[in-house]
């Protein structure tokens, strides 16, 4: 059930009505039912996977918690009897058991994800190698279907079990509440990746109908639809034309396609998240923001703090830090400092951890080399920027232009261009082809296509370009207004006529200008496939 399908709209409309008419104690139960119903629409056969994740995490989290309690009880019971060493030893022995249970859960759940998502990728690589160097025997591909949202719910749930293991919070006692946390439908297919202590504050709470919250939620849903169906799905036509005909569309076309895709991905992903957060808001549930005006970032590093925030946080907390402080890494750190000296030696573990995180980020996005290379290229840019920082500092000390509008604009434009260039790997989905097409931007100076009408042959009419331009201006305006706080709060204090004129314009724009229905190849959200 696509977010932009009529069936989904009917589904959420019915849910909203029922949600606020039933006794409040049943609200979270209704959400659980709705989430599983939503999931079943994607295929009843996939329910097994999400159930397995939920049950395994539930049981293991309680096992780990029981060990926590056992440890506490034992230590308080034998307070004064045990030496410091004995206490430490006991704690370590409990930790070791907990660690085994944690590993077991991570292995099961990441194992399912790995098998379903990466088996055929692995087979393709083995086949390539046997073709090149071996006897040429080819393995057959497995017929595997990826359950909806598995990357998102697996990460969210594994974050939960790691937090329980770390003792950040106690595990959820109620299996069904945990099941709702894992399957909460608005965020199931494209995030955000929530943390239990954050989401549970409002997810299970009994809610009364709150006019403001419902209004704000509906406005955000509508804004999400605008971004998705008016901008993203419209510009998709142009992107597809350029990307699927690399022999025809080179040079400036690649540049145009690159910018188109930057706009498409932004409108698509943030639009989807707006719908998710809007639905949650109508239901009185607070879900973490996933974007913070990323295209205003002045560096790639900053960009990644403002784009897909929850995924970045997940990797930082559950992968980067653990890798950075794990025993082998500490050993490597000592070793490299001894061999290469402090300056280089201290960098090696950080670089390694960064590369691992970005390799994983890449492969999380898709089981193909283009994503791996995309991830590694991101880390390369980040590390190189980091290395150049002293140089930048000297430059800024000398020229004092760091805080000028012109320089800040240059930084923003540079970041957008860099990010867009890297995303060519996502567009072409083929590493050599991506490099080739990137190269044509510097060898094929067909600037005339911007003026000779060739842009009209990309499947977009003049009317489409006008809509896109207006959409872009609107996105920019909203982002600028957001600097002073919530747009909806600022709108709320405007005169009634102006307010309604804006609401209605948005609704009518979505209905009239949306690229949906017969004649349009309605597309799913880009991040649904991850």
């Amino acid at each position, binding site marked *: 059930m696509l977010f932009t399908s*009529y069936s989904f709209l009917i589904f959420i409309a019915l849910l909203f009505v029922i949600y606020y008419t039933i006794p409040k104690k049943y609200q979270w139960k209704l959400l659980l039912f709705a989430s599983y119903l939503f999931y079943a629409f994607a295929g009843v056969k996939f329910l097994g996977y999400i159930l397995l994740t939920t049950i395994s995490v539930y049981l293991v989290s309680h096992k780990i918690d029981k060990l926590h309690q056992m440890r506490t009880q034992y230590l308080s019971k034998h307070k004064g009897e045990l030496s410091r060493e004995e206490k430490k030893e006991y704690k370590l022995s409990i930790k070791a058991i907990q660690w085994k249970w944690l590993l077991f859960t991570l292995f099961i759940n990441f194992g399912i994800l790995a098998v379903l998502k990466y088996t055929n990728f692995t087979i393709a690589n083995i086949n390539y190698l046997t073709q090149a160097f071996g006897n040429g025997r080819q393995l057959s591909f497995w017929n595997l279907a990826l359950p909806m949202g598995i990357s998102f719910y697996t990460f969210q749930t594994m974050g939960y079990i790691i937090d329980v293991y770390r003792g950040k919070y106690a595990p959820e006692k109620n299996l069904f509440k945990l099941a709702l946390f894992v399957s909460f439908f608005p965020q199931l297919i494209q995030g955000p990746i929530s943390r239990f202590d954050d989401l549970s504050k409002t997810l299970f709470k009994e809610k009364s109908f709150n006019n403001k919250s419902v209004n704000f939620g509906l406005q955000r849903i509508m804004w999400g639809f605008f971004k998705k169906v008016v901008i993203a799905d419209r510009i998709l036509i142009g992107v597809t034309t350029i990307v699927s005909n690399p022999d025809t569309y080179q040079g400036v076309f690649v540049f145009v396609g690159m910018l188109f895709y930057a706009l498409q991905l932004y409108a698509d992903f943030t639009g989807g998240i707006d719908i998710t957060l809007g639905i949650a808001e109508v239901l009185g549930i607070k879900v973490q923001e996933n974007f913070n005006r990323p295209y205003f970032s002045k560096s790639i590093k900053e960009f990644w703090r403002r784009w897909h925030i929850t995924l970045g946080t997940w990797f930082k907390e559950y992968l980067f830090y653990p890798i950075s402080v794990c025993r082998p890494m500490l050993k490597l750190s000592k070793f490299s400092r001894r061999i290469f000296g402090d300056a280089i030696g201290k960098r090696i573990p950080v670089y390694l951890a960064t590369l691992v995180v970005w390799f994983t980020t890449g492969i999380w996005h898709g089981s193909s080399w283009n994503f791996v290379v995309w991830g590694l290229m991101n880390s390369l840019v980040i590390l190189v920027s980091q290395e150049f920082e002293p140089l930048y500092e000297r430059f800024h000390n000398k020229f004092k232009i760091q805080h000028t509008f012109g320089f800040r604009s240059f930084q923003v434009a540079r970041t957008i261009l860099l990010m867009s260039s890297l995303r060519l790997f996502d567009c072409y989905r083929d590493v050599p082809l991506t490099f080739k097409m990137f190269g044509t931007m510097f060898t094929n100076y067909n600037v005339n296509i911007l003026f000779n009408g060739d842009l009209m042959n990309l499947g977009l*009419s003049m*009317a489409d370009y006008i809509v896109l331009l207006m959409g872009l201006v609107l996105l920019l305006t909203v982002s600028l207004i957001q600097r002073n706080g919530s747009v909806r709060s600022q709108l709320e204090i405007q005169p*009634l006529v102006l307010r*309604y004129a804006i609401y*209605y314009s948005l*609704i*009518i724009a979505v*209905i*009239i*200008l*949306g*690229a949906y*229905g*017969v*004649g*349009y190849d309605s597309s799913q959200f880009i991040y649904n496939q991850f």
Partner: protein
Amino acid sequence: MKTKRVLISFVMACLLLGSLFLMERLLMPKYVSGVVEGSLIEEYYSESGKHDVIFIGDCEVYENISPITLWEEYGIASYIRGSAQQLIWQSYYLLEETLKYEKPEVVVFNVLAMKYDQPQNEAYNRMTLDGMKMSPTKLKSINASMLEEESLIDYLFPLLRYHSRWSEVTKSDFQNIFKKEKQFHNGYYMRADVKPVESIPKGRKLPDYQFGDNAYYYLNSMVELCKENDIELILIKAPSLYPYWYDEWEFQMEKYANKHDLQYINFLELIDEVGIDFNTDTYDAGLHLNVAGAEKLSKYFGKILREEYQIVDKRNNYDYVDIWKEKITFYNDIKETQYAEIDKYGSLQSFGGNGE
């Protein structure tokens, strides 16, 4: 305070719904030029007077039968409820709907639609279904006609289907937003131009000649419906040279008609008797008849209706005279306009001709 809030909400809701309604009216295709056939179905509702004969089917009825000729020659009041590529279930539901408005003596169904067992084309679906008034019958027809990529909600709220026409809106869309001129009379689509038959394409071999179960289901339903309402059902195959009418299909129709004690007339076998000359009586090389051909066919068929079905001549019936007088004037005006255009430009310019 609360009353004021409710009032404001009500006014705002009305404003939104009103705007959406206006948008819908504006963006829906008007079918007043170019593909005018899209107006055929809806024009029935502004029809006055009853009919002795109702024709149902696709272009092989609405372009090949002239109700005015049937009136002028035999005093038979008839109406064609047909539209482009009208599928058999659409014909059935149109008949079901028509019977709610009137009860004819005879229903004539053109059997070419038997070749389609499944929904075919969204654009044709819309031309048939958009024109129907909302009713349970229409919903059943939509349900039977929808392709996989279509959805019921698009039919209930056509704005969702036609929203993308915003960039194609013309002056005509504004002019015809609430009311539009009649394009036809009695469901007949007149063409006066001529394009002779040069060669008749042979039918390519089909993997299976058997009409589908779905098509038979609706034909059976039509037979039942006519029986229940005490209406004579006649099956015809219009004298259009293509789409090709296979012998295997002919055999099935003959067998069916015999089994159900129905009259089945294949006019392809009566071309000489009817007097159709495919050098002068078709406007698209044999696919459809022009007005000259339609008048010949109607004269011939009228005789059958009069002699075999004893339909009473209504030409002296005052309930009919004035209505048909106006129709004849309209018919002759269009015919004259078309001939004038052909004389002036060498081909038809309006009425779906070259100029549109």
